């Protein structure tokens, strides 16, 4: 099963081992014509409980490995399942079409919505084309253009966030990614349509926030959302990028942490082992979550939507006065 879903992660190896043993036992039993149902059944139960044990007790770092799994579904994979009649719209009307940021119009059930997200590649070639899903400023500006278009026509906006962070490149600086991210945040605050954000994998700092100002913010079970990537934090904090595990603990970037801190409104569950084990089931869960949180927003007036979103972000932060 795991074999069809790309590489096996280190912590999954015991499960794979056990599955191999079961398979060997089956072959042996068949070849030798020795009935071993009972033994196999015991092992299968053991495998199941091992699976549960491992996957239910993932460390934050293991979750990060899962959301970076090469077979994890990407933006367009999800769009194909969650939405219908998607028409992709390209370009920032200014400089370039950025393939690392994708957006367009589609139906969510029968509601036209604008859907936007970072697009990682599904193989090496696509990853190069899509800059590993790391947008340049024109990507953020395309997203903003499509959000303004949605705003003009009263269309809800769904943002699926999956980006390790902003892109550390010369051109991204030359074309002002700082300005682009800031502008997006500011203008998203002015949108008078419902905005639902779902962090599907990695929610890395400004690159995530640039399409992250939602009335509701949801998060996949294994996703992370942080001011800095775990590796970046470890480099600064421990001068050792490999100590990402400790950094993750310190930063509190996993879904349960963020739910507890009211940064996200709901955690969307993934199949055992992660989204790539069953993209269809994953997308169904996402769709259910999006609709659940979008539906009450559809009843609000533009003014209420603005105020609702403003209030959400106005309250964040803790401090002592006098």
């Amino acid at each position: 099963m795991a074999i069809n879903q790309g590489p096996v992660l280190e912590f999954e190896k015991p499960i794979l081992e056990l599955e191999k043993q079961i398979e060997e036992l089956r072959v042996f039993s068949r070849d030798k014509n020795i009935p071993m149902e009972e033994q196999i059944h015991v092992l299968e139960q053991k495998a199941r409980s091992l699976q549960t044990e491992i996957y239910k007790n993932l460390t934050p770092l293991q979750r990060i490995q899962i959301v970076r799994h090469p077979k994890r579904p990407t933006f367009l994979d999800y769009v194909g399942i969650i939405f219908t009649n998607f028409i992709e719209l390209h370009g920032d009307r200014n400089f370039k079409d950025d393939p690392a940021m994708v957006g367009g119009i589609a139906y969510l059930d029968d509601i036209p919505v604008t859907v936007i997200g970072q697009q990682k590649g599904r193989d090496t070639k696509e990853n190069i084309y899509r800059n590993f899903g790391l947008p340049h400023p024109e990507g953020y500006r395309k997203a903003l253009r499509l959000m303004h278009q949605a705003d003009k026509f009263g269309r809800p906006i769904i943002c699926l966030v999956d980006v390790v962070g902003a892109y550390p490149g010369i051109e991204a600086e030359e074309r002002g990614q700082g300005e682009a991210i800031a502008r997006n945040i500011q203008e998203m605050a002015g949108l008078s349509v419902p905005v639902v954000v779902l962090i599907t994998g990695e929610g890395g700092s400004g690159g995530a926030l640039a399409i992250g100002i939602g009335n509701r913010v949801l998060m996949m079970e294994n996703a992370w959302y942080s001011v800095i990537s775990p590796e970046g934090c470890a480099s600064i904090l421990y001068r050792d990028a490999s100590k990402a595990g400790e950094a993750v603990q310190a930063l509190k970037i996993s879904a349960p942490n963020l739910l507890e801190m009211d940064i996200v409104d709901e955690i969307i569950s993934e199949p055992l082992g992660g989204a790539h084990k069953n993209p269809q089931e994953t997308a169904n869960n996402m769709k259910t979550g999006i609709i659940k949180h979008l539906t009450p927003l559809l009843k609000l007036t533009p003014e209420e939507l603005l105020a609702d979103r403003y209030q959400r972000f106005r309250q964040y932060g803790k401090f002592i006065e006098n």
Partner: protein
Amino acid sequence: MIIPLLIRDFEAGVGMAIKDLFKTKPKYITVKPSGEFPGKIPSIEKKEIPDGLWVKCDRCSQITYHKDLEKNLKVCPKCSFHFRINAKERLELLVDNGGFQETDANMRTVNILGFPDYENKLKKSQKNTELIEGVITGRALINEIPTSLAIIDFGFIGGSMGSVVGEKLTRAAELAIKEKIPLIIISGGGGGARMHEGIFSLMQMAKTSQVLNKLSDAGCLYISVLTDPTMGGVLASFASLGDVIIAEPDALIGFTGPRVIQQTIRQILPAGFQTSQFQLEHGFVDLIVQRKDLKATLTQLLKFHLKGGKVNGN
């Protein structure tokens, strides 16, 4: 090195043989970029200037007595290189005598995530800067024009933005909206968002940017002044959103730091990358203003906008 040519004017040294100055190892600090950067990034290694020392200019190697440097607003008298100044110095530079009324002076940080060593870092910064947190906010008269002014101090954990900085900036904007006065923010934050507050520091980017949207809707002028350095989450939020954006010369201004870019792309960064001039040429800064002219330029810009915007004007 011909020292006499470099030292032009100093108090302690008058009548003293130049060589006497160097009987002991001279205590000037060098502020050259470290060997890591082949591309010249003049400002990344800038340091605060300690008292009682001779200071060597990063750019022209001019050595200046610290008091003379201070008299010259911490600008190299030879090549006009702008050294960093702290928030209180900036306040003195810009605000009319007696014209400042601080707000939220006692707002304090909470280690919201229980982040390792954060309290120590805060205490150290508090001691070094004599500030409670990294931004001073308040009502300020600039040549008698009332403004809401916020100044970030680089010395406070690199001028980074945590909950207190974000909240105080937001309130400064709210004050401007309420009193229909212009908002001026002087940014000089190295690290941008403050990692030690995790996701809450990221949320300050959202909080400060969205209030500027309200400010804009209210027709208030917002002038953003970028000083050395303005990076990361600071640049990617309020600092980039001014109606007018002023940069001081020689500031490092960018989103991703040059070290990280260098390490990622493994190429030499172009000369002048992420300087004030670079940002001007790439269209992100309205004008570069010498420190000595900053108050006058701000005043003129404020005067142009005295009647206010469409909303609160006529």
